């Protein structure tokens, strides 16, 4: 019967969806038609498949009408990885392989004209989707087997060519084939020294008690943080050490994060799940597509998604392009990004913690310490720069701290410098308390809790609540700011095991939010 069907996976955003790939070969005007909302790559697949089949020594029904259907037909199909399933299903429809041999299998891979296979992005989410839909077997490019094998309960087979795929399903001996070709396109903007992050520790930094405490609170509750200060005040050094304060990813997070990296083409390829929270630090000149996601051709997740469950560091953020700053509003507020392409929208998760760093002025030298003030900016330049810092983005920043270079502290013989591990222990405990409290809720951290739910179900103690209301009435906090203070107060309480945040926690939270000096008892309670 000139009809055959097999499976592949369509990726939308970070999710895979099972797709039936069907071929019908019949009489009629010779030609190929592809139906099922495929993009340009998909509609060009039959040409690649035709050549790959012919160059593999097999036959293409050039005098027949070939119809390829990707079903469900209303789901967008993008990418080149449908090639393998397409070619096999045509071979089955023409009787060159047994149709039954393609059952219960997902095939993914791009074909070259010579019949070889090329790597594709997103093999891990494809494997996850396969397993979730009860498919038993995945066939993919050989070099990506280890990535797919991270998913338990799925049989993964790697091949190098269409010829090998045919031999596989027929049960014949494997022919020789050239190695798999690497993925097209590079990975996203490289940032400085991914591997460096493993060696840095919080105790490398002298002083900075205020900023370190803020980092601890931000890490514990998933709060966005702004570090403001002149050059040399330690903003970048501190930001790089924040991922080290976060606990290991749990299994769900690890799969999500690794999938996103796979889709971005940024997986190391050694087949291990990413366990540590990721760190992403794009340059301030980066385009909106590289930060938010999208891009021409293949849609990819951006840096905000690559920092999912980790830390996104936006250094010199007032210098970010305006369109980038505007587009950051959505992930900051909803923890996902929506990338619009034509009439389709794609959503990627982006639930990372953002650390913003800003100099006090464009040249970076403006100090409040007169002894070293060497700013070369004009007043207008400073004002324009500061205005960018104060936009709608900063309203979504929970914690603001002003840093000064730590000169005396570096020589303090009594300084007790905690290690990242010590702080991470407290952060982990705080996160466990939050997990317990929000067990029945769709969010996990204080920084994600909606204001209405906080007010109704997780209120502050009376005195704390009154203090907060007083500040709103008095105009020193907006209503939205009060919600953020409420979230922070919970995190401060979680870090010290206080059952319900009260006036002390609210006071510290207000200082953290407004960039005011902290009461030193806040720093002392942490160190004890």
């Amino acid at each position: 019967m000139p009809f055959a069907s097999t499976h592949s996976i369509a990726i939308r955003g970070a999710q895979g969806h099972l797709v039936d790939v069907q071929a019908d070969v019949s009489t009629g005007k010779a030609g190929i038609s592809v139906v099922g909302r495929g993009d340009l790559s998909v509609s060009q697949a039959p040409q690649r498949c035709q050549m790959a089949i012919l160059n593999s020594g097999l036959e293409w029904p050039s005098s027949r009408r070939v119809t390829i259907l990707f079903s469900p037909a209303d789901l967008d199909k993008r990418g080149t990885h449908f090639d393998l399933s397409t070619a096999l299903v045509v071979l089955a429809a023409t009787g060159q392989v047994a149709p039954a041999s393609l059952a219960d299998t997902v095939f993914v891979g791009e074909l070259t004209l010579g019949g070889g296979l090329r790597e594709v992005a997103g093999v891990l989410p494809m494997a996850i989707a396969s397993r979730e839909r009860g498919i038993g077997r995945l066939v993919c490019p050989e070099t990506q087997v280890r990535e797919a094998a991270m998913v338990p309960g799925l049989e993964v087979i790697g091949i190098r060519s269409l010829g090998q795929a045919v031999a596989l399903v027929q049960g014949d001996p494997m022919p020789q084939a050239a190695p798999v070709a690497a993925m097209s396109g590079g990975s996203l903007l490289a940032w400085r020294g991914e591997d460096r992050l493993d060696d840095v520790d919080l105790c490398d930094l002298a002083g900075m008690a205020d900023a370190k405490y803020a980092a601890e609170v931000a890490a514990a509750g998933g709060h966005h943080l702004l570090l403001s200060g002149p050059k040399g005040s330690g903003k970048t050094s501190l930001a790089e050490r924040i991922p080290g304060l976060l606990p290991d990813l749990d299994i769900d997070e690890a799969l999500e994060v690794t999938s996103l990296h796979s889709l971005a083409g940024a997986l190391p390829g050694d087949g291990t799940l990413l366990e540590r929270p990721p760190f992403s630090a794009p340059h301030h000149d980066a385009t909106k597509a590289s930060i938010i996601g999208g891009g021409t051709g293949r849609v990819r997740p951006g840096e905000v998604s690559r920092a999912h469950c980790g830390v996104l560091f936006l250094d010199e953020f007032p210098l970010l392009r305006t369109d980038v700053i505007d587009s950051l509003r959505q992930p900051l507020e909803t923890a996902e990004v929506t990338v619009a392409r034509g009439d389709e929208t794609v959503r990627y998760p982006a639930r990372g913690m953002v650390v913003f760093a800003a100099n006090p002025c464009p040249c970076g030298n403006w100090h409040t310490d007169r002894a070293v003030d060497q700013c070369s900016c004009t007043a207008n330049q400073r004002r324009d720069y500061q205005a960018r810092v104060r936009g709608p983005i900063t309203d979504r920043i929970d914690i603001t701290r002003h840093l000064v270079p730590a000169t005396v502290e570096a020589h303090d013989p009594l300084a007790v410098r905690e290690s990242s591990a010590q702080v991470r222990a407290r952060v982990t405990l705080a996160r466990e308390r939050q997990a317990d409290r929000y067990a029945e809720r769709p969010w996990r951290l204080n920084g994600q809790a909606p204001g209405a739910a906080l007010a109704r179900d997780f209120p502050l103690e009376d005195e704390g609540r009154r203090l907060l209301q007083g500040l709103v009435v008095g105009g020193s906090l907006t209503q939205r700011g009060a919600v953020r203070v409420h979230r922070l107060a919970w995190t401060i309480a979680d870090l010290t095991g206080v059952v319900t945040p009260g006036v002390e926690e609210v006071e510290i939270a207000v200082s953290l939010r407004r960039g005011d000096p902290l009461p030193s008892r806040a720093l002392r309670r942490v160190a004890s």
Partner: protein
Amino acid sequence: MSRADDADRLARLALSHLTEPGNLRIAALVTELGAVRVRAELIEQRRLSGEHEDIAVRLESCHPEEMLAAGESAGLRYLVPGDEEWPHGLDDLADAGAVQEMGGVPLGLWVRGALRLDSVSGAVAVVGARASTSYGDDFSMRLGADLASAGRIVVSGAAAGIDQAAHRGALAAQGRTIAALACGADRAYPSSAGRMLDLIAEEGAVLSEVPPRGAPLRHRFLARNRLIAALAAGTVVVEAGYRSGALNTAHWTERLNRPLMGVPGPVTSASSQGVHQHLRSGRATLVTQAEDVLELVSKAGEHLVAHRSGATRTRDRLTTRHRRVLEAVPVSRRAHSDSIARTAGIGLAEVRSALAHLQRCGYVDEDVDGWRLGDGIRDEIRDRAW
């Protein structure tokens, strides 16, 4: 090292063991009659009238020689007035009256540490709230370091917050600092200050009026504050709320007629309200850095702080008339002198002469189309930075 009469020393030691520090009555009696006689009379009074019986009983059973030896084996020395090492700044307490019913020159001081107290001169006390903020702590640490780097001894009370920050700043700058305690000089209060006090004693001194092992009872804090004020040439209060104990030290500083200085904080900060109040009433002088402090505690004419203002701007160097002409000169397009004269509202001859002067200064330049601002100050003027 010359020592005061041993009998006097032992009598003072015994008396200090049984009376609270800052006891004015005992201090007055000792001044009038001498410690030996006061001790003897107190014991005698018991025999005579049964009054003060408890004190007298304890006095009799008290063995100051043993206590002195015990203290010395714990690394403490007991100084009394008359010793060569006795710091004379403390003698001013005799005329400084009472605050909260306490005062007077101490009977003696228990001291540990390498620093000889008689070498203390021009020291600076840095005190403030336990409930400090990171702003106050950072400032105090910096001040302590700067003062120590300038060769000054930093005096404080080892309390959490401002005191400890000041001590640590001095230590970080490898300077000398003195900690006056409300507990015995061999103890640490708060206990977290133990290591700091040991470090202080290496180059500086840890001292107390309270005998060794003595507990830090509340009134003993108030009594020791007068020591901090009296040992120093001036006191800086960094952060203090309305009811902060640091204000008690400030009060002693005024009684002793020494300079009292205050560091302002954010006006919204409750931790600075006490300081602000003192600054407002004129009782304290505003300081923002070590140089300001040094100017106030040094002899007249020494350590003068240069008057600081913003950078000199172009227009500061011009006369008023020349400034008006300069402001009438356009920034980018050119104008002839008659147009400039109209804009400036000044006569043509004067404008021409002014333009010539401005041109010599490089502020304006001329071509066939007229006058325009020179490159150098065009940016300044445009950004209103001039």
